């Protein structure tokens, strides 16, 4: 019960996964780098609790949308776990994005043309 509350506090279900996959599509990264990347790209608008990234990563691992591998980071010289998107992950991302776009269009139409025009 509590975990759903935490996850849906500021994002809809699947949003975090989508952003992770999109980040990984550009470049494989480890968890910390992913957080950094998402925060920077969103201009810190999305205040995601950093920890919540990891359960999402495990879900993606389980559905074989990403793979993970331990390597030694050149920057810190410590062992880090690098995530990489799979082919299935790419397909999944495509589908999710188009579905998300359709959903966003729908929401915008409901919210009214003025706001939609103003925004675009």
């Amino acid at each position: 019960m509590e975990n759903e509350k935490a996850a849906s506090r500021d994002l809809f279900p699947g949003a975090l996964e989508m952003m992770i996959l999109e980040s990984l599509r550009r470049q494989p990264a480890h968890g910390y780098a992913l957080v950094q990347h998402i925060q920077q790209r969103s201009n810190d608008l999305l205040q995601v609790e950093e920890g919540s990234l990891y359960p999402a990563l495990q879900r993606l691992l389980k559905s074989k949308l990403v793979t993970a591998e331990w390597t030694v980071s050149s920057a810190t010289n410590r062992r880090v776990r690098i995530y990489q998107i799979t082919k299935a992950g790419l397909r999944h991302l495509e589908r999710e994005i188009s579905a998300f776009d359709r959903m966003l269009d729908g929401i915008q139409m409901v919210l009214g043309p003025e706001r939609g025009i103003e925004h675009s």
Partner: protein
Amino acid sequence: MSWWDQFARVRHLDRDLSEELQEHIEERTEQLMRLEHLSRADARKAALVAFGNPSLVEQRSREVWQWRTLDSMLADVRLALRRLRKSPGFAFTILLTLAIGIGANTAVFSVVDSVLLKPLPYPDSDRLVSLWLRAPGAGIADFADGLMMSPSMFLVFSEHNRSFESMGIWSPRTANVTGLAQPEEVHTIVVSDGVLQSLGVAPAIGRWFSQADQEPHGAKTIILSYGYWQRRFGGDPEVIGRSIQVDSQAREIVGVMPRGFRVVDRDFDIVVPLAPERTIQDGPPFGYFGVARLKRGITINQADADVTTLLPIWMNSWRFGHYFAVWRIAPDFRSLKKQVIGQVGSILWVVMATVGLVMLLASVNVANLLLVRADSRQQELSIRAALGAGRARIARELLTESLVLGLLGGGLSTGVASGGLTLLTALGPAQLPRLSEVSLDGRSTLFTLFLSIFSALFFGSIPAIKYAYTEASDALSGSNRTSSSSRTQNRSRNVLVITQVAMALVLLVSSALMIRTFIALRNVNPGFSDPTHVQTMRTSIPSSMVPDERMATRVENDILDRLSAIPDVTAVGFAASVPLDGVDADWNQLQVEGRDYNINKPQMWLYDYVSPGYFRAMGIHLVAGRDFNWTDNYDLRHKMIVSESFARAEWGSAANAIGKHARQSNRNPWDEVIGVVADVHQHGVDEKAPTIIYWPVLMIIPYIPQTTIGAERNVTFAIHSKRAGTENFLSQVRRAVSSVNPNLPVAGARTMQEVYAQSLQRQSFTLVMLAIAAAMALALGIVGIYGVISYSVSQRTREIGIRMALGAQKGGVKWMFVRSALTLTVVGVGIGLATAAALTQFMRTLLFGVHPLDPVAFIAVPVVLVLAATLASYLPAARAAAINAVDALKAQ
């Protein structure tokens, strides 16, 4: 993916995750130190805030891979196990109680299941019936089971019936097998055509009997049992076609029956064809078991009706057939299973109910212990409830603990069960049918599992229900230093103690009734005396070996003389049947001189054929007159000896009977009564001593028109000696017999004491089982009372301190606790008495000389229980009285 791979992967995942999370926090910390110039401690704090709760994250991540409910269930199990490890005494007591309780139940269940519940080991066994008849007009009170079949009935019924696929008659016998090794008496079964076909079990090798084998002058054949084949022929398959000497008759082996095959309830060595002669049949003898296989869709009642129409045909077909019209014979067929189980059913159900009660008692005790434990955790549980743990969550945890206990106990119980089964089969009545089929099988295991879970839910639900519904605020405010134990806390424990006392009372009363039965049986004078010094053994002289009747008796006479010559032998005799051996030599009617039998038909009496000296050897008191002598036998004098009850009934007294006359039928000359002997409990001390008419072993056969001499060829010797029963003595007996004829076997060597003990086995077995159960019940009950009182003492320490400080006397404090225990006991006794009065009615068939509501048992047992309860409560009460008021108030 295998279970282990999954497991290993989860372990791996755990390590990866925590390292990954640590790395993340570390990297963030370093960044904050670098960019914001924070100290390491502050940076780490900020990093953690940004990250959230690492262990929560870790758990959520792990849950992605897991089945969550199962995992938290496993956690509950782990917690329960850890808790049990921490209180080994508590765990040990509960597990031992459960192991014994469940184990005893599993053992008894296996027996009940194999004997009573499983179908007989024949194909489609529900279509098998046992052929018995009723003969209310026969005047034989002792035909308790009914009238058996005769060969002439078999011939008529099998030819004309429309209800049976096949039917046949059979009878257990013994035979001498010679020419293999030492002469040996073997158990044979004579079967008519149709018996093996009805049972429907194919031979392991060879074939069944053919039609030709069942012709009186056809081929002489036999079929071996698996055991005899292994024992005598080493399982040699070439045995088919070989011949062996059975009662000096060469017979060809045509088949071997498979392992475990029995003819209805009998083990045997050899099956012999009955081959009844059609031309010389009479109505009687009614001495054969009948078995038949019903056609599909035919019920037993339909078969009864069918055969009823055949009885007139039977009476028309044979000489004297119409005589039996007055017997009013009617079919009384019953399922074969009923015959096999016999009286054992009632014993087994009593034993099952008994161990069931013990299990209930054990569960109650465990529930009580769990309640006490849950009480001590009340604060913890209340705090958890206050912090938001749901009722279901708390109940689940308590139930998980009980389930863990139940399953562990069930696991341990398998050891107890296999031990108990060994004990049960060793102690069990020898006539317990289907004993060879008893084993701990899948059904028993399933039963154990079921019982473990069921009992766990039972004893676990009591504390679970109780504590799941505790209002957090009540417990938090109630159970602390100012209070004594609350009323609600005690109520469930009190109910449990009352239940325990009631159940213990039921078991104690039942075993007291059995003890009284046993004493009553021991006090019955069996009619014979000094049984420990009477050696019995059987031998038989087949007519194929000694054709002449006189000669056969002469051989027996020689054996008797040789036996008398053994040192320390004081008396020897033999008889067709000896007391309690389960053999009835004969039944027939008797006409007393001077009575008119035109209106009342003469009654049937039990006959026995006895040698001179038999009464003295068996220790049967000669009340009046004299014993037979050998001249009476060889000169075929018409002499008889009657039992005392007959003499009194017919002639007023034993002395009056001497010189009086009686005969078997109008066609016979009168026989003179020369002696009267004491009544003997021929069929067991729990049955009324039957009237017995004794005849010489060699006499003119009365019911054959031509004068034919008949000798008793299957006889049991009774040898009175102080060395009876010793190996040395038995080998002297065997030498004496083989010195007369080396082909004669000695079989069934037992002392009368052994025969006597075996006849009481049904009662002694029930007694032992009930006594064990009652002892367990009493012990559990005492522990229960002791537990409740000592727990209440520990809970009320402060209260006692206050009472003592205010001037309460030690005696008063003691009495307060003893009184509360006695109140519970008395209530329990009251409930128990009512229950026992109802339940002991079911034991009626097992009791002898004792009323089911025997006042001694119903008064003595409550007294014992009350005394035990007093003692059990006195110990903790004394501890309470020894409390020092100041210490008690300072404590906690």
